[in-house]
């Protein structure tokens, strides 16, 4: 579908590019908290422990330039937002003092996902409606340290996910 000419679609992209930048800023803020309070700052110091952990990762290959497909890319972004929205519960348990920032992040992610869903419907694309409550099981860890390292990698993976999603949305502005 010819997208870039559509005025509403451009406004949707402008708005949600800014929204994604906001979410990335909030995730970076949480990463700084994990570094400052838990002294977990560098990924390459935690690779060994990561092998013992089962950390959710959300696929985004439909959003990469080579295999770019708008409809499935949107759906993968929404699916990923849902996975990371659920695993933020892990972060909330780790950083009780920052529950507000985590809640803001979850609200923003839910809004971004429903903004994308609304836009897909406006474009006549097929969409998935998720139940409001996220039933995915919250991951458990065999030790407090594993829980902390798990939290570190959830944020690192989510930041990478957002960078890819951001590039996909920016790519759409030029289509």
């Amino acid at each position, binding site marked *: 579908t010819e997208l870039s000419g559509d005025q509403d679609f451009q406004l949707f992209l402008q708005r949600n590019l*800014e929204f994604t*930048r906001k979410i*990335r*800023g909030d995730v970076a803020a949480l990463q700084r908290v994990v570094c400052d309070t838990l002294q977990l700052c560098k990924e390459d110091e935690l690779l060994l422990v990561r092998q013992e952990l089962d950390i959710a990762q959300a696929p985004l290959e439909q959003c990469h330039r080579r295999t770019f497909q708008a409809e499935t890319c949107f759906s993968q972004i929404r699916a990923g937002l849902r996975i990371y929205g659920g695993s933020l519960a892990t972060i909330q348990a780790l950083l009780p003092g920052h529950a507000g920032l985590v809640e*803001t992040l979850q609200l923003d992610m839910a*809004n971004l996902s429903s903004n994308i869903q*609304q836009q897909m419907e406006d474009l006549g694309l097929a969409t998935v409606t998720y139940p409001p409550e996220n039933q995915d099981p919250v991951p458990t860890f065999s030790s407090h340290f594993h829980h902390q390292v798990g939290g570190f990698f959830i944020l690192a993976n989510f930041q990478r996910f957002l960078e890819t999603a951001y590039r996909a949305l920016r790519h759409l502005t030029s289509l």
Partner: protein
Amino acid sequence: GGTLGCASVAVSPRVVPLGSAVTASCTIQRELCHGLEQGKVRISWMLDNKLVAGSQHQGPGGTEVSNLTLPRFNLTQARLFCCVEWNGTKQRVGVAEIRAGYPPAKPLNLSCVLNLSDYGLTCRWEQGTNSHLPTSVVLKCTGSGAQAVTGCTPRGGHSHCTVPRQLLQLYRQMEIWVSATNALGTAESERLCIDPMDVAKLDPPTLQSIQSIPFQTDCIALAWDVAWGTEHMELQCELRYRAPEDSAWALVTGIIGQAGSAQRCGFLFGTQYCFQMRCRRSSATALASWSEWSPVRNYTTHEKAPAG
């Protein structure tokens, strides 16, 4: 309403438009009124403390009934007592509360501002004339397609309230309106169709440094920080400056907020200027308001070296 035993007072309607008619009836079941067994039952009425005359007749089953019509009820609130004569005194034996007023006025001039520190959307409106009746006012909002929910309820007769972040849909059009309801009807304001981000109230940027650019140019370099919490936004900023003796500000528009620095020429040498800056979201529609002007920052340009 009224006491079911000795006397029962019925009023309809209980709430009336101010100035319209009210009819009431009082039924006395003599055998249920201790002490009223003998003599004639004489029913009378008191509106709060004012005597009002009704017509009396025998009702079914030996009851005595009095009817009363108040042609133009122009009190906003009153208690209508049914009384009977007893031992030479007037006894209040039943009561009904009557209220009068107007349907709620249509709330006007609804406007909202998003507070970036807690992402609460504070909306204000004008309530219009007082309806004199208990009126419940709520702010309604709905994301497109979503079901309308109560965003917030103004406290104690105020005409503003704040929709919490949890009920907002950021970066997408929402419909927001005020609904006022009382016993005589409901009135709704115009619907505001906005993306809450478009009415975000920005704090001003902070001018960090101002320096003359060397080698005797009449140019200066400015550096600024955008307000906390707006780093992710595309901002459009304006700079204004003037020397004390200038009457008007010189205005520089179309500055990209994220750039963080800019240059400007055409300044007099050895002159003190004061500078201010303000920003707003560039993607926002006309609705978006400018931040306040930043605090003034003074700077004196360097002296021009004597030629040759």
